């Protein structure tokens, strides 16, 4: 069940990377390591992404980890503007709300100003481009 809205989750597999996808709110759950692989597939720097995602948490989220049920913690990834993603305390993975994925990728690859940043963001946006009722895309 979706940690954000309680909707049904399905697993979406692309090139061996598995992502849990909420059919209702289109949020995404990445198990530890899966996001790295996805970003590297798009030509991004997985090291840099890992470093960005390892930021110190700002607060406890009300949502719970898909794997262990512990409360997730919120971390701000990137700067100006940063993206709030939610992370499992013991490292099971990350929850991204709809529309956060490409912004995380941008923050982790040097921003929209760099060609590789744009490439990764475009790759990920293409991968999850169809979002019914996505608030960020209208």
């Amino acid at each position: 069940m979706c940690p954000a809205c309680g909707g049904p989750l399905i697993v979406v597999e692309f090139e061996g990377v598995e992502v849990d996808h909420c059919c209702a709110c289109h949020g995404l759950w990445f198990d530890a390591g899966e996001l790295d692989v996805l970003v590297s597939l798009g030509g991004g720097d997985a090291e840099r992404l890992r470093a960005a995602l390892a930021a110190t948490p700002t607060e406890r989220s009300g949502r719970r980890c898909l794997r262990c049920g512990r409360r997730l913690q919120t971390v701000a990834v990137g700067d100006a503007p940063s993206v709030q993603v939610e992370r499992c305390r013991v490292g099971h993975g990350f929850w991204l709300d709809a529309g956060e994925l490409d912004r995380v990728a941008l923050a982790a690859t040097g921003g929209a100003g760099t060609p590789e940043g744009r490439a990764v963001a475009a790759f990920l946006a293409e991968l999850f481009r169809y979002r019914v009722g996505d608030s960020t895309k209208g």
Partner: protein
Amino acid sequence: MWEAIESNRRRSRVLIVLMGVVLVTLGALIGATVGAAVGTATPEHEYTYPPRRAPVPRGVSPPQQGVFAALAADPGARAGAGWGALAAGAVCLLLWGLAVGRGESVLLSAANARRIEKSDAPQLWNVVEEMTIAAGLPRMPAVYIIDDAALNAFAVGYRPERAAVAVTSGLLKRLDRDELQGVVAHEIGHIRNADARFMTLAAVMMGTIALLAELFLRGLRHVGRGRRSSSRGGGQAAAILLLITIVFAILAPLAAQLLYFSCSRRREYLADASAARFTRYPAALASALEKIERQAQPAEMYKALAPLLIVNPLSGGLTGLWSTHPPTRERIRILRSMGDAGFAAYERAYRQTTGRRACIGARTLAAADTAPLREPPPRPVAEDAAQRARQVGELLDRVGNFVVIGCACGVRLKLPPGDRQTQVTCPRCGRTHAVPAAEALAIPAAAAAAVAPRQKAPPPMRYRRRGGGWESFKCGCGNPLQVGPAFSAPALRCSKCGARIEVVPPGAA
């Protein structure tokens, strides 16, 4: 072989008894601490808070007398210790019964292992079959797979006829057939050498010690918050007792693991020697060990056993079976320097590498035959790791009972077993897919009337196959079902509701 197994068996008994002592001591200490706390807080079973009077202790005891002073001074602690020890003893017996009765299934379900059949993973199945024959086991162990990226494997089974071999999906993905055979041979070696029985018992005991210690320490945190200020007159002896119990609760799980490892070393070498003998290709096990050692991931295995242990008191844990103990480098070097595949060759290589001797008993060596090494098979030109990964992924979907829908845009959508949606939209391309399901067959009115009195019978259904490969679909009751490439029967029965489902081959009218 037998003298080595015999001496291992003796050591195992000592070890299990020692672990039992640790467990009973832990139980007694926790019992005493709880007894002392309860005795202090509520004399005569009246709950008064804060306590009306502090019954203990009269004389202040020097710290070094610790437990005994506390026990002497506090009747509550004394009774608690007795009850605690008794309870721990009972738990010990219960565990032994559990391990004997169904230890393997407890461990396997704690590790989230799923049993597979031959059609699920033919290669793994064949390898286990071959090694069973090579080892001369009376019957083939059950084969389990664990969805875990870490490279790992273990064997369990208190009785040989209930033995099982479990491997992780990571192992299947990363090892080639020969390496997999080496690892399976090692595990079969454990079963053959009667290690699996000991390992099962020890794992269950280690789990309980960790569980008990964790429960105590966790409980303490809660209690500590509640009654910090009320410990007026609680007694120095009781405080010392508490301290000792805390220290013991922290050390006991470590002690259990050290005990375990002190005994597992020889077993690992012996299982390696057995694997070399069974496969006649020790270099394959060596290269498998290299891959296992190289993996960067932390000990996922232990996390998998978390339901049994609740927390991971030591990162290493049961993974030590494979990766930490004895030193993997040493094992690799021994395997690589074997002249032939016999026990004598292993013993020679062992002495050469470690400088120690007598890994395998002298009588065994005298009776041991030599066996020529197998020629390394010609390497496939380009081993298709990606294809292997895909096959393992599909295997996991099958054993996980996912209903899988391949979308034309290249992604695969997988519905978990409990999912109730009848259609899903692909998040990439927006195509909407109907979830494959068996359709209800229209029953002629007359037949329906005849059937009507037996209302319990589920209606017959029909499923049209889409292709010739593995396919998953839902029964009308929602239960996910699968048909494989080899499926040729006209119908199957739902494992949940028992409905008969007609299976129509692809292309048939």
